């Protein structure tokens, strides 16, 4: 055994609590420790993932209570893949903001890293846990750190955005609790595997209502239209790296939760087409809204929402191919959208309104950042030979193989819209005259490094997707195999 899944929750949580204390010893530790922790977790997760891919999932029982009575963590190919992805993004965000936070002073930096660690703890917990109430707790942890991070710049707008997030987050908690209550009242258990094995005994009405409440609650976090009102504001007002973290970590975790409920826990076949419907709605509304935005981060936020809609659509096909496509898309989206947020926030760093027009002519002052933003834009709209193309291709292939030609056509039409607004921004960066009162800010070395790593990944995956597709194939097979999940968890005897 190379390590246990519980470390993924325990270590960052511990680090989060230690950060203020360590800060008293030496202020730099506030910044260094999260990095060390994340690096360790990265190594750990890669090791575990390798192990899991070969020899099957690891089920970790907490406090000695065997499932279904105790809380258990499941590190399978599917959840392991997502955990690795999240930790990696956490690392990138940390790297990016390592020096960036020096400018904001010790107190905010402390809070920032503390909340970031909490956010990662929560998100990783959501993915790993095998218990629905435990998941609720992790969702709350994620949410609360998310509210805090949104309000990082203690201005009026940030506070407002944070409040919106908080408000919808509370509704989500309520709905989620209600859904858990219904299930618990019917089955008397909170363990996912246990619920999954018994779900066919539940009265269909309760089942459906519970699922609807789950989807609605998690949909708020996963930015599903029309539940995603908080998202554009939060993305726009939070610092750039936080936007990347939201897009890459929080949303991924919430989508994971929805998928886990629909694929593993419930056995309602209509849920798949429902996923397609809400996914399509989200995609279309978000992309069309994005084209008319005048703030860069808002645009990116809408684009991010749209991409998640597409992920849901891909999951909604319900085939292994669809799941593969969705996971691939999640991976690419995490990498590319993070790159866009990270580079984008430097492009509008010193401007007050963060308007798109303020990126005009930035390539002369920020050549590498601009290039990476352009690369990200090209990749996210799915132009070959960049990473986004392969995932888009898999989504479309999955759609065609499921005979959803209408969905296929709509996705492609929306892609054209997406293309337009990204290219408009890229054109502005490269071919417009710089506004006079815009004062470009050079990115720090760490930030540049973080962005370059992401950019390189885009190229690597674009030219040779096989580096990652093997893992994703296994992960998707893992998700599709519901019986195996139930057996793996329930067979654990302490």
């Amino acid at each position, binding site marked *: 055994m190379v390590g246990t899944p519980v470390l993924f929750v325990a270590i960052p949580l511990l680090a989060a609590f230690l950060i203020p204390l360590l800060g008293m010893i030496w202020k730099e530790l506030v910044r260094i420790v999260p990095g060390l922790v994340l690096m360790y977790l990265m190594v750990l997760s890669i090791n575990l993932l390798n192990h899991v891919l070969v020899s099957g999932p690891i089920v970790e029982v907490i406090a000695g209570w065997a499932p279904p009575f105790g809380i258990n963590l499941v590190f399978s190919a599917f959840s392991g893949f997502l955990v690795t992805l999240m930790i990696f993004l956490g690392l990138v965000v940390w790297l990016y903001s390592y020096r960036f936070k020096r400018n904001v002073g010790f107190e905010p930096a402390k809070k920032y890293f503390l909340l970031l660690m909490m956010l990662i703890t929560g998100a990783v917990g959501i993915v790993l846990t095998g218990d629905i109430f435990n998941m609720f707790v992790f969702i709350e942890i994620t949410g609360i750190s998310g509210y805090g991070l949104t309000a990082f710049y203690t201005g009026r707008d940030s506070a407002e955005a944070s409040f919106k997030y908080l408000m919808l987050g509370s509704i989500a908690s309520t709905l989620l609790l209600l859904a858990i209550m219904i299930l618990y009242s019917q089955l008397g258990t909170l363990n996912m595997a246990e619920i999954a094995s018994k779900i066919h005994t539940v009265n269909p009405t309760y089942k459906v209502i519970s699922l609807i409440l789950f989807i609605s609650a998690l949909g708020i976090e996963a930015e599903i239209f029309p539940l995603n009102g908080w998202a554009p504001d939060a993305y726009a007002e939070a610092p750039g790296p936080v936007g990347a973290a939201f897009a890459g970590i929080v949303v991924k975790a919430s989508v994971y939760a929805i998928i886990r409920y629909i694929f593993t826990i419930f056995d309602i076949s*209509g849920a798949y087409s429902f996923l397609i419907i809400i996914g399509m709605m989200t995609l279309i*509304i978000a992309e069309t809204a994005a084209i008319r935005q005048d703030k860069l981060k808002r645009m990116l936020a809408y684009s991010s929402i749209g991409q998640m809609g597409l992920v849901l659509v891909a999951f909604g096909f319900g085939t292994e191919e669809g799941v593969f496509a969705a996971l691939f898309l999640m991976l690419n989206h995490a990498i590319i959208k993070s790159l866009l947020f990270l580079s984008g926030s430097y492009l509008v760093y010193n401007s007050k309104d963060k308007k798109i027009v303020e990126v005009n002519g930035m390539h002369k002052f920020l050549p590498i950042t601009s290039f990476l933003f352009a690369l990200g834009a090209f990749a996210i709209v799915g132009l070959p030979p960049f990473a986004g193309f392969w995932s888009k291709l898999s989504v479309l292939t999955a759609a065609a193989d499921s005979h959803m030609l209408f969905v296929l056509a709509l996705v492609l039409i929306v892609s054209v819209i997406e293309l337009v607004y990204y290219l408009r921004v890229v054109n502005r960066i490269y*071919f417009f005259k710089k506004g006079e009162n815009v004062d470009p800010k050079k990115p720090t070395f760490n930030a540049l490094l973080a962005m370059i790593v992401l950019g390189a990944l885009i190229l690597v995956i674009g030219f040779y997707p096989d580096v990652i597709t093997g893992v994703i194939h296994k992960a998707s097979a893992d998700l599709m195999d519901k019986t195996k999940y139930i057996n793996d968890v329930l067979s654990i005897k302490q």
Partner: protein
Amino acid sequence: METYSIIFAIFLGGAVLTYFAGKLNSILQDILFLGSVLVPTYLFFSGVSFGSAMPFSLEGISLLWGIDHYSWLFALIVLGLGSLAAVYAIGYMKGKERKGYFYFNFILSVMSMLGIVVSQDLISFFIFWEIMTWSSYLMVIYNGKDIQRVGIKYFVFSAIGAYAMLMGIVIVHSITHTFFIEDMIQAYGHMSLQLQIWIPILFLIAFAVKAAMMPLHVWAPGAYSNAPMAYTSLFSGALSKMGVYGMVLILVTLVSRLPQGIWFREVLAWLGGITAAVGTLWAIKQDDAKKLLAYSSVAQLGYIITGVAIGTELGMLAGLFLAVMHALFKGTLFMAVGAIEKQTGTTNFTEITGLIRKMPWTFLASLMSIIALAGIPPLGGFVGKWMLYESLITSDHYLLVILIFFASTAGFLYCYKFLFGFFLGQEEKEWEHVKEAPATMVVPMILMSVFMFVLGTFPGIILKPINNGLMDLGFVDSYKHLWETSVIFNNWGDHVILQPILYSIIAIFLFFLILVVWKGYKGTRYVTTKDISTSGEVPKEDENLTFSVGFTQPFLRAVAPVMRRQIDKYYTEFAKGLEGLFEFMRRIYTGNAQTYALYVVVFVVIVLLFKDVLF
């Protein structure tokens, strides 16, 4: 096979190296650039053989690269024109900004076009297709002129086409479970009728966009004229041919097996004819040489589309021969415009006049290309036009042939406008300092002119490869033995024998030329264009005798009713409407927390209410 890997590695590596070499040394960059276009070209023609293919796989998808005689023809266009344009570009780009950017995209464009023709599977086809699109898009916005409109329009149309094709690809894949073109062709016969109709349509949309066919051509004038001219010659000459390449492939391998395929052909042929006519009319109207040539390219592609859409062997030959010719003459013409732009700084007919004595070589190349473009014997354009007409007449397209004839006759107007506008007419002081373009720019143009001339009398040089290519596509060959000679035939046995005609023309021309200039040539002296008799008066030095504004006014007045309608306007209206819709969509996000909470509640309630329907 190794050669493919090496070729594409050189292209890619060359592109990146060339880009960064600019930071070190400009000449090194030029050399690298030339090398990364010419070396793969050499490797391709020396090292790649027919029939051998390179299979490999990526992301679990089997891919296959290889060539047959048909794709070889297009590789010839791409690499031939690409090499010449590359030589030209060295001269053209001297002292310009963003050389690295230009070279990078140039190499990528050539690479992607070669990739398209060697792709034997749909995925690498699509990948190269998209690389071609974005590298050419980056060229279109190179000048930074009007990019949010022209550039985006180009990309949006390309994307619509490409995505239509992608849709076709994945649908085919859902049936055959492979991406090989060969398998698509095999499986096509067994598909349902609905798919049999839709799949060619989806593909043809993509190809029609690239070939700038009506009504998908609106991107072309802006894109062609905004790109740097050294690239536009490749853009119009070779890149647009990729559309033709695909179109022929689809028409021959898929549509011809469909009983309803006749409708595809008819619609395409007519759209091609209308494209030719409308493109010509708009070309006549332009006062900017770039725009004129851009519209002219649209029109010429119209002929080509008509030819290949007819689908008879003669039609195919005509279309493909015209495609080769178009690459030659339009490549040269755009180069000539580039040379003029470089030497004078403008490309507007109303500003430049009388360059013939200052840029004689450019004029000669332009003259040859214009003759070829107009389809006048004895240059190659005529052969293509002749076969086009004959194929139209012999395949019962009586009204279409009239339309095509109208287009090409009206085309003389812009041909003359081009030559007159730049080279002839009054010589003005303003342009006295103009010098001939450097040799790197002139030599490619002259070389291509020579090709055009040779092809006019010995079309067999190109017709034979075309014929081989068509046989590879499955045509029954009925003319093969004839292409050895310089005779062109139609289905009814009528023919034109080109060699005696060429010799007669040369003989007559020389005889009368000598008759005019022989006696006392030394006695004749050159007089300036001010020294003329306008109704017996001798004009003064400062008198403005330049005629360039409203050059084709009388003709345009005659066709005014046709030109009042512009498809572009409808597209613009449509786009405006869409933006309005999007604005409305945007307002869904009111920014008000209560509204958002309400959305959540409404969502939950609605889903709960309709749960029986949904789940």
